[in-house]
């Protein structure tokens, strides 16, 4: 059977429902594409073909019986390797978990599978999701499918690259400081970070618990809405998951955007923004104006303090979360150790990469006696100010439109020796994580070198519907 590749969720599900193809054939096609292209991209760390084909077969039997198919029926998906998958190796991109086989599924993964998704495998990422280029993976870097000498962004670089190279129809990633939106922007796909508490974190390997979000990377805005619809909602296994009704995101994207007020914050167009990115984003804003949105200039005055605040809070939480990698229960253990203390220290030294060590050190320092007030507590107070900035802005506007990243994808190796320069790649994304507001990155044009540029739309807490709707209107108008 030959046909055009099935690229979106609706295309796959409809074709299987109408029996012009089977879930098995779709899965096999995607594995064939992985086989052919992933040797030069490096998006996957582990494939789980047996599990995938079993799931696909189940979907095909439903289709054969003429049963209505669930929303993600037969849709091949990739899962970032920080989300636990029962029986399938989950490494978090770290040597410390190189042989870890989780005994349970993350809630987001279980909900995807319950909706019919076929999990193809686990995607590469920066170690413990710490990085903005995917170069901190303990396994291998990932190449940007749009330009192989460029990074795919991070930390969900493998998920973004898998979707961009049509090796998966959709993927799950995690976003702690921009790790869904920035790689989506670099690879030219859609990336959605839901509101904190919208999607359960159960089974997500923790980096910074008050900042970690699970969300989709997809080819279209509608697909992002469909995946969010599937994974959102209260989960008793995560006490921070919100007990709020889940709206019909897919239906809501069709609503008109005319009359919506969009905020443009001058702090997001200041020094450091690449000119080509600025032009692409400004053109997108003009387009949104054409669509009937009202553009309002606003200020988020504490924006310049977001990166230092983020790197104190995220590292402090990480230093605590990563204490569990002690070489006893599931993580790497150094050989030939004589005492318990030596076992801890050497196991952690041998299995953590340089960036993870740097962050544990910074976080431990910020929490240590004598420095707690000056660093950690100070950062928590500035977090309040950053959140108030959004509260004030959302009193005036319905959404805020910004660039996702100050530059397009940079070259592999370009920033890997300068941690601070790497941190600044997240300058437009970290604030939303700190405040817990939702954000989406969608493609908005290219640079002269044909590198994708991302447009970021931020919304009110639990108002994913509005940002999806604006993103959809923009996407459809292009």
């Amino acid at each position, binding site marked *: 059977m030959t046909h055009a590749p099935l690229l979106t969720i609706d295309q796959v599900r409809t074709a299987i429902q109408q029996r012009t193809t089977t879930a098995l054939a779709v899965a096999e096609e995607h594995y064939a594409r992985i086989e052919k292209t992933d040797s030069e991209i490096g998006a996957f760390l582990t494939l789980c073909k047996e599990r995938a084909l079993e799931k696909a077969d189940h979907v095909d039997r439903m289709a054969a019986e003429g049963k209505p198919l669930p929303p993600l029926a037969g849709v091949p998906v990739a899962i970032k390797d920080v989300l636990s998958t029962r029986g399938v190796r989950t490494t978090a991109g770290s040597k410390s978990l190189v042989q870890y086989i989780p005994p349970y599924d993350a809630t987001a993964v279980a909900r995807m599978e319950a909706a019919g998704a076929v999990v193809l495998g686990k995607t590469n990422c920066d170690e413990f999701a710490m990085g903005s280029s995917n170069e901190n993976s303990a396994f291998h870097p990932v190449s940007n499918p749009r330009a192989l000498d460029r990074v795919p962004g991070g930390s969900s670089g493998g998920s973004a690259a898998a979707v961009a190279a049509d090796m998966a129809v959709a993927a799950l990633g995690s976003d702690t400081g921009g790790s869904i939106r920035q790689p989506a922007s670099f690879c030219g796909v859609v990336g959605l970070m839901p509101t904190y508490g919208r999607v359960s974190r159960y089974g997500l390997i923790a980096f910074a618990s008050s900042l970690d979000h699970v969300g989709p990377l997809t080819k279209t805005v509608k697909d992002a809405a469909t995946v969010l619809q599937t994974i959102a909602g209260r989960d008793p296994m995560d006490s921070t998951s919100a007990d*709020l009704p889940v709206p019909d995101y897919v239906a809501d994207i069709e609503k008109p955007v005319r009359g919506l007020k969009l905020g443009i914050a001058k702090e997001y167009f200041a020094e450091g923004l690449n000119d080509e990115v600025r032009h692409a984003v400004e053109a997108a804003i003009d387009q949104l104006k054409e669509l009937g949105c009202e553009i309002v200039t606003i200020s988020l005055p504490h924006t310049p303090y977001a990166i230092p605040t983020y790197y104190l809070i995220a590292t402090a939480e990480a230093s605590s979360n990563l204490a569990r990698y002690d070489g006893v229960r599931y993580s790497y253990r150094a050989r030939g150790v004589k005492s318990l203390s030596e076992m801890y220290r050497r196991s952690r030294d041998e299995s953590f990469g340089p960036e993870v060590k740097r962050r544990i050190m910074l976080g431990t320092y910020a929490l240590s006696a004598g420095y707690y007030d000056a660093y950690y507590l100070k950062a928590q107070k500035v977090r309040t100010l950053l959140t108030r900035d959004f509260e004030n802005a959302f009193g005036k506007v319905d959404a805020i439109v910004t660039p996702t990243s100050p530059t397009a994808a940079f070259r592999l190796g370009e920033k890997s020796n300068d941690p601070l320069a790497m941190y600044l790649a997240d300058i437009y994304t970290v604030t939303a994580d700190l405040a817990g507001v939702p954000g989406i990155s969608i493609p908005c044009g290219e640079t002269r070198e044909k590198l994708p540029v991302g447009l970021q739309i931020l919304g009110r807490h639990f108002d994913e519907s509005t940002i999806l709707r604006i993103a959809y209107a923009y996407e459809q108008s292009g």
Partner: protein
Amino acid sequence: MKVTEKDVTYVADLANIELSAGERSGMVRDLNSILDYIDRLNELDTSSVEPMAQVSDRYGVDESKRGSDRFSYASRDDIPEGLRKSLPREEALQNAPDADGTFFRVPKVIER
């Protein structure tokens, strides 16, 4: 310079990370560069600002409720066996670098 090699050694000790001499000097350089950047937070007067540890205590809760009632959804009945069953022993031990079938095995803790 905020952080010296001595500080790095002390913090590495707190974090249970062994660093080689080369790693230590790199860490002194990197931490100082990051902390210099972080210093800009001192431009802000936060004396009357409340710290924020979590998003979920501010948003996504029923605004009409007060105090601990706002978070009543997050509490549940005390189920002795937990929300899900405990892992069978062999599953709990399967990822351990060293186990004897009943316990995790570690190097001797108490010297005598």
